Structures are given as C-alpha cells and as structure tokens.
C-alpha cells in the first residue's frame, strides 16, 4: 500500500468513526468535538485529491468557524449531558441498539449502494476515470463561481442573509427597542 492509499484509509476511517460517534457520544461536548474531527478528516480527503482550496475552506469555515460557534454555544448553555443516550454502553451494545447502531448503519449502506448504482449507470454524465486536477485549483474554482455558477452562488448568499436576519429576529428580546 503506497502512502496516499494509507492516508486515504486512515482519513476515511477517521471521518466515518467520528461521524458515528457524533450520534452516539453521551456528552454533547464530545459529540461536537467528534463533528469537528469529522470535518477535519474531510479536509484531509480534499488535500489528498489535490483540491487544496476546498480543503482550506473546509477547515476555515466548518472546523474553524461553524464548529467554534457551536462549541461556544454548548459551553455557554450548560447542556452538559444528553438525557436519554445510553451513557456507558459498550460499542457492541450500541451497534445492537436500533437507534444508535444497526438502523443508521443499514440506512447509510443502502444510500451508498444507490449512489454506486447511479454511478455505474453513468447517471448525470459523471466521468468514469479521474480528471487531472487543475494546477491552480483556486483560480479554477473562482472561474466557476464567478462564471457559469454566478447565479446559484448569489442565490445561496441571499439564503444565508435571510438566515442571518431570521436569527436576529428570533433572538431579539421582545418589546425592547435596544
């Protein structure tokens, strides 16, 4: 096994294991940290694919910004423990339980099978062999974002703005025009 393959196996295992632990960790802070680890693993996978722009953005936005705010909120909110998670069950017991173990596992395997089947049929015209990575992926992504995909990009930013305004309205103290 050459080292990119070894790195891929390690990162893939890290992403999958921490994603599973997000759902099963008894402490919500641990769940948040596992989510951060999962994001970091995905960034590592992007690095392996030589998509260094996407990798950096994944780290910067998801692991750096989004998760920091989530952890910050958890720390402030004193939600130390989730009530109904099986706190000290072993991993085998967790796998046997429907909510934490076999049902989500079966669901994700089924989803994966559907994806593979769609890919094998050549749905959406996906290439069968890997395209060479562009030498300057940042320039490539920028060209796509400000060229053919300018409208979806702008619509997504309007959506984020709407979410921001919504958050401000939801958290505003009623009846106080501060």
């Amino acid at each position, binding site marked *: 096994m050459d080292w990119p393959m070894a790195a891929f196996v390690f990162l893939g295992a890290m992403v999958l294991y921490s994603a599973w632990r997000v759902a099963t960790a008894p402490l919500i802070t641990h769940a948040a940290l596992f989510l951060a680890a999962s994001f970091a693993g995905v960034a590592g996978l992007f690095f392996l694919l030589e998509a260094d722009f996407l990798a950096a*953005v994944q780290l910067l936005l998801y692991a*750096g*910004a989004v998760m*920091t705010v989530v952890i910050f909120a958890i720390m402030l909110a004193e939600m130390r423990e989730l009530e109904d998670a099986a706190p000290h069950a072993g991993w085998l017991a967790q796998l046997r339980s429907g909510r934490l173990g076999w049902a989500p596992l079966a669901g994700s395997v089924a989803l994966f099978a559907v994806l593979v089947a769609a890919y094998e049929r050549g749905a959406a015209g996906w290439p069968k062999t890997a395209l060479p990575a562009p030498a300057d992926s*940042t320039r490539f992504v920028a060209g796509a974002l400000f060229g053919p995909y300018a409208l979806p990009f702008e619509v997504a930013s309007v959506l984020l703005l709407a979410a921001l305004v919504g958050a401000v309205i939801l958290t505003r103290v009623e009846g106080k025009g501060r």
Partner: protein
Amino acid sequence: MSGMSLGYVLVRSVILVLLLMGAFAYFMVLERKVLGYFQLRWGPVRVGPWGLLQPIADALKMVAKEDTQPLGADGLIFVAAPALALFVALAAFAVIPLGPTLHFGHLALPLSVANPPSGLLFVLAILSLGVYGVSMGGWASQSKYALLGGLRAAAQMVSYELALGLSVISAVVLAGTLSLTGMVRAQAVHGLWAMVPNILGFVIFVICSVAETNRAPFDLAEAEGELVAGFHTEYSGFRFANFVMAEYINMFTLSALGSILFLGGWLGPFGLPSSAWWLVLKMALYLFFFIWLRATFPRIRYDRLMSFGWKVLVPLGFLNLVWISAFVALGGWH
C-alpha cells in the same frame, strides 16, 4: 508533490521543529531580559553568562514537575488539548517559506516544509483551529477560572480572526496571489513593499496578531488578577509548557506572515540583495514590538476589547479592502 520524497519532507519537518523550539527557548530569554530592562531590573542573570542557560534550567524544571489533573477533569480532552494546541501551531509554520530556495550543487533546499499554491489560505485555516486547544483545555479542566478563560479566548480569537482575515484579503488583492512566495515576488516586481499602499491593512494585521495570540494588552484570557491563569490554570509541568510553546510559535507564525505580506519578506531594503536573514531580522523587530507592547500597555477591559474588534477594526478592514481594490482596479501600480 513531484520530486519530493516523503523522507526528505520528514527531515525538513524535524529540522523546522528543532529550529522553532530553539527560537522559542531563546525568545523567552530575550523577552525576560527586555521586560527586565523596561522595568529597571536585570531579568535572568544567574544561570550562565547573561542568563543564557536559563531555557535549559526552565526545561528541566518543566519536565521534572508533577503532572497534575483535577479530579473532575475530562481525561482524554484534558490530555489532548495542549498537544492539539502545539500541533496546530507547528503545522501552521510548516508552509511558511523563510526565503528563496537554496541550491547546493543539485540538491535543492526549499526553506519551508511544503509550499502549496494557496499557502496563505492554508495558514489561515490552520490558525483558525488554534481556538480548539484553548477552549478544549478550558472546558476539560472543569474549573470556573479555566472555563471562563477558555470562553474569553474563544470569543476573542473568533472576533479578531475576522479583521485579520480582512487585512490578509487586502494583501491578496494587492499581490494577486495566494502563494506566500508569490507575495514576495509581487513585491519584488513592483519594487515596493506592500506596506506602502496598504498601511492601514498592516496596522490592522499587527493589532489582530497581538489579539490572536492572546498577548498583552489583549491577554484577557489569562488575566491573572481575575482568572488566575485562565484556560491553563489547572495545567502543570510539560502540558503547561505545551500551551506556552504554542502561544510563542503562533507569534512566530504571525510575525513571519506579517513580514511576508506587508514588509517584503526576504527582500532587502534600499535594493540590497535578498536573503533569508532579512526575513529573520524583520520577524525579530516584529517580535520585539510584541514585547514592547506588553511592557507598555495595561490590559484593556473585555467589553472594550470586543467592541474595538467588531466596531472599529472590522469596518476599517472593509474600508481598507475597498481602497486597495480601487487602487488595483485603477492601475495604482503603474
């Protein structure tokens, strides 16, 4: 990655880590000496001539100390936090080029562990993970001082990262590249340090780099008078040393970044030939400025710190970005 074997990268990583550790040790001596002179005392004088063997004594003390852990602490996270903090600090420095690639016969020695085309973005991404070590350490200690310190540090770092990012973006617009070597090359081509048109961006960068590293006068996260030692209150011995090392290596990273983005990197002033030593000199001046600030200013109040970041630095950063974009678009370089 072409032409670069894994072993060669490993060797250079080890060299870099040793270099950073040595720089950290002697920067500590320098800081204590300079702070001493600022305060009309001698600083360390007893260990070795001029206190030069002080870091060895400090290291021995740190290793020999008992490794304590509070009873209610979250074991794994408590142990992982300082390691993560140090890892993040070291990883960020890995992509910073210290100078142009050296050639010995047909052996090329690049003065960085890796030099990705979007190196600047990588540094920012890694630096944004620095907040984990601090907040995890603060939370896992299960002590009120540590938790409050961790929260303060997290909020402060996230807030100032925004203004820092804005000043970095202005430098990117000016140079037209995300590569750190490209940054220096752009300044060489224009024959002008980026600091000249982008002076506001440079000032914002300096202020934010002090706040990002939780240094005085922005060291609210470890305000001794109210929070004991903030997020690392419960840490002792080598784990505590890890946190301190991470803080200083982050200072090195930000000073190198500031020198490359705004001060021409390894370009010499007045047309003198470029050399890695120029970058080291600029970093040294930058770091001296850190110490100078610490010796001069009292700690500012927390609410003022936050409102300064959000209501002064962020709008100024946007204004500066507009100015720099106009400068580039209107052909200010020509």
